[in-house]
């Protein structure tokens, strides 16, 4: 196992809110390496926001552990930025006042230029009160606090949801530039995988509180094939989803060795196709590749 510190490492993380409600996280284990840009995806209610809130130290899990940059949540607060889905800000403060708050709360690391570039890029005036901003402008101010802090890890819960396509592109570009220049690790959640496909290198698909797919985007794509043909059955290839195809059959599978190209027409599905097939088939077995398997659980497995 590598000794390199993970950006986020969760081991058997469990969460339920009270006895009446169901389990939100049900044994979630993964490891996102430092410097990675990770997409946290999954259907509504899969546990994405809960997972991020636990990582940010805002909620205590019912069971299991999570470590950020080698420390427990809350321990590395100055090195971690978290932007919650509802973008909590002080409504009565001005934009400039909010940035000043960021500067005062982050002595020694605050980057005013970086914060201003993000906050004022959408036309917001420094003297405007936060409560009078549009949804997109509020998002920019919330992200500006995260950028200004120059964190080593950014946890972003649906950061782009309120933004128009141009602002989305600009802010994703700003995030990528931050990662390229400072090696910042980024974890961002979304339920649209297409918008994360070209900017993320790691993918974590949560389904019913567990990791259903985890790995680098390349590993996940390479682990799947679409087979079409008239063969009897798919043999030892693990079928994620099968569809009718005229007289033949077609399926998204995790191939066991190279599929027989004499029998099957083999295609490479896109990451989004794989994502959708798993959403439609939550019972498909989990696939977590070596690069995101937590070191501790691998050790336990070895014992």
């Amino acid at each position, binding site marked *: 196992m590598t000794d390199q510190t993970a950006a986020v490492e969760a081991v058997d993380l469990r969460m339920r809110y009270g006895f009446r409600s169901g389990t939100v996280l049900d044994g979630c284990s993964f490891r996102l390496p430092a410097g990675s840009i990770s997409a946290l995806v999954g259907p509504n209610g899969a546990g994405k926001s809960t997972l991020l809130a636990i990582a940010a130290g805002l909620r205590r899990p019912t069971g299991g552990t999570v470590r950020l940059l080698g420390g427990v949540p809350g321990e590395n607060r100055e090195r971690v930025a978290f932007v919650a889905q509802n973008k909590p800000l002080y409504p009565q403060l001005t934009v400039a006042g909010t940035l000043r708050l960021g500067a005062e709360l982050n002595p020694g690391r605050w980057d005013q230029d970086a914060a201003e570039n993000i906050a004022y890029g959408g036309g917001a005036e420094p003297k405007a009160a936060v409560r009078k901003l549009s949804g997109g402008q509020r998002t920019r101010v919330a992200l500006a606090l995260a950028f200004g802090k120059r964190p080593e890890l950014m946890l972003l819960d649906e950061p782009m949801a309120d933004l128009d396509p141009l602002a989305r592109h600009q802010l994703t*570009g700003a995030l990528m530039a931050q990662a*390229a220049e400072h090696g910042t690790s980024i974890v961002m959640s979304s339920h649209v995988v297409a918008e994360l496909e*070209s900017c993320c290198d790691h993918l974590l698909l949560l389904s019913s509180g567990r990791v259903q797919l985890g790995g680098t985007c390349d590993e996940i794509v390479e682990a799947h094939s679409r087979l079409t043909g008239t063969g009897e059955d798919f043999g030892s290839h693990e079928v994620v989803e099968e569809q009718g195809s005229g007289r033949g059959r077609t399926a998204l599978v995790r191939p066991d060795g190279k599929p027989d190209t004499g029998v099957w027409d083999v295609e490479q599905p896109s990451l989004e196709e794989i994502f959708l097939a798993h959403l439609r088939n939550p019972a498909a077995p989990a696939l977590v590749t070596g690069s995101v398997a937590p070191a501790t659980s691998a050790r336990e497995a070895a014992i």
Partner: protein
Amino acid sequence: MLGRVIEYRIDRHSGVATYLQIVKQTKQAMRLGLLEPDDKLPTAREVVEATAVNPNTVLKAYRELEREGLVEARRGLGTFVRKSLSGASTDSALGRELSQWMERVRADGLDREGAVALFHAALDKEFPEVEQR
């Protein structure tokens, strides 16, 4: 040196891997004489800020160009063009000859598709390797 740095256009629906789009656009710019030896490619930071793609994708593209001997990374300075591919400029003797050939094709009554078919037949005969995806 160029007045402006090359900007990449990423088509997310083309089915062509993003890093290959960057490789191809760089080569195209070199062929057209938009990039000449000692011109600097944009930094990974500049590319990702403009295109919103993952930084590793840009580094992979630049490594591929380096592997093909077209560019070189100079430590602390950036990535620079090593070779000239601009023999294929539309202004060159070959480019002008091809234009004249196209005029003759049109004069002979062939349409655009006919010209493409002839061109590709000759191209495949002379350069039989498979075009990489």
